């Protein structure tokens, strides 16, 4: 099955997927990837800039705690970063990213990404339907 998603696209979905599902997928990929060299696996900060809608100034809103993993195997690198401090989840993301780079189990990965994206879209849709129910039409007397 041809790869239909970029690595960044897959990561964008999997960072919001339940951690146990992501970790289970990564576990199932490990055997095929062979020896993996861990370049980084740590927590740290990502500074979040924000645009002021009054005057157009970009400023720093604050920092986000993240976990990241950077790994290498078979001459390719895999990377994962996720909001929070779960370094195992970051490592799982890096393993999946590496598998996509190497073309291992692409169909399995894409299938899970598709499922998760559908679930997330359904969750957002439900949330926004609840938000819509709070739409207010003000009247003045």
């Amino acid at each position, binding site marked *: 099955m041809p790869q239909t998603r970029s690595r960044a696209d897959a990561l964008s979905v999997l960072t919001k997927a339940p951690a146990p599902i992501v970790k289970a997928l990564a576990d199932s990929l490990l055997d095929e990837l062979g020896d993996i060299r861990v370049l980084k696996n740590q927590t740290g900060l990502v500074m979040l*800039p924000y645009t002021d809608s009054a005057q157009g100034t970009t400023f720093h809103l604050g920092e986000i705690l993240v976990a990241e993993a950077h790994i290498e195997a078979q001459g390719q690198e895999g990377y994962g970063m996720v909001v929070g401090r779960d370094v195992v989840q970051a490592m799982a993301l890096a393993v999946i990213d590496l598998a996509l780079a190497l073309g291992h189990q692409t169909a399995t990965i894409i299938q899970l990404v598709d499922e998760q994206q559908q679930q997330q879209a359904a969750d957002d849709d439900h949330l926004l339907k609840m938000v819509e129910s709070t739409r207010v039409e003000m009247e003045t007397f």
Partner: protein
Amino acid sequence: MAYVATKGGEKAIQESEKLYHQLKKPVTPEFVQEIMDTMPYLVDRVMGEGSLYAPELAALALAQSGGDLYEAVLLLRAYRSTQPRLAYAKPITVDDMLTLRRISAAFKDIPGGQVLGPSLDYSHRILDLNILDGIAASEDDEDTQVEAAEKPAATRYPLVADWLRQQGMIAAIDVPEEIDAADIPDVTRDPVMMPAPRAHRLQALARADTGGVLALGYASMRGYGFIHPTVNELRLAYADVQVKHPVTGEPFSAGRVRVSQAEVVTKGKSTYKIGFTATMGWNEVKLIAGATLDMEMSQADPHPALNEDFVLYHTEPIESSGFCIHFKLPHYVTFSSGMDNMRKVINVLYGAAAAGKDADDREVEAEESKTSEVVTKDTM
């Protein structure tokens, strides 16, 4: 002022900390999770002031500090200082947000309309004692469930400020230039000079003490300022943290965070003036008070308590709370030095015999002594 280290009391200090913990229930992972799940606005406030988005750690800080907000913010800031900065995210604009609440007090009809989203604004402020009696409504009760609309709300809304700009009611702004995030002025790394770059001002407001911002903003609203604020637009939203993949260079989302922003307007001579504040998490009081202060600080000659220097320095939660509570720590040497000086003054003014007497008695005696001298002179 000179500070002199003290030593001693090690055992008492250790026991004091143990007693603090013993007088409350121990913190458990379940309790921390409960705080995250049931008090998101409190967690947001601590994250915003702690300048670190980490709900789990903010909840832990609240639990560990027994709910002392300043102590919790300090714990979060201290943790933040141990972490390396790994990257800068793509700047967030309103176009990137999933907006859940968007209201305007200035206009009832705004492009895109108003959605109240999650809010207690129009609720009765009545304690639900049924909860204490264990007869609270079940989560499955239909009356407590949102009746979802058939169609979803929009994910994005145009800015009310842009709408006003199109009508010439507020000043036009240039399209923001692309800026390398690492070059944005940063109060955590640069000294804050006055007048502060706008990026410093807005960052300082984003991490300011909510109570401090409210106190000064309220002073302006009550009449010590020159403006009458109206909320042009207020938004609560989720935003993706977009970072660059270090191998492919493509942007990807590392997850979603809660953010909020408000614009406040006031009448100028021929157009409206606009103020702005945004923060991590959802904190409406801080947004409205902060945006009001943004406008006050931009006045040519604001009230002394509303100028930029005063506002930014006095709303820093860790600096202010830390300076306040340091006064309870040992100042024995400086206080003793002051006492010595006071004794010398008493000795010189009232004589050695006055030392140790009640201050009021001393004053009375000194007055009587003066009167008797006058009487003696007059009768001579």
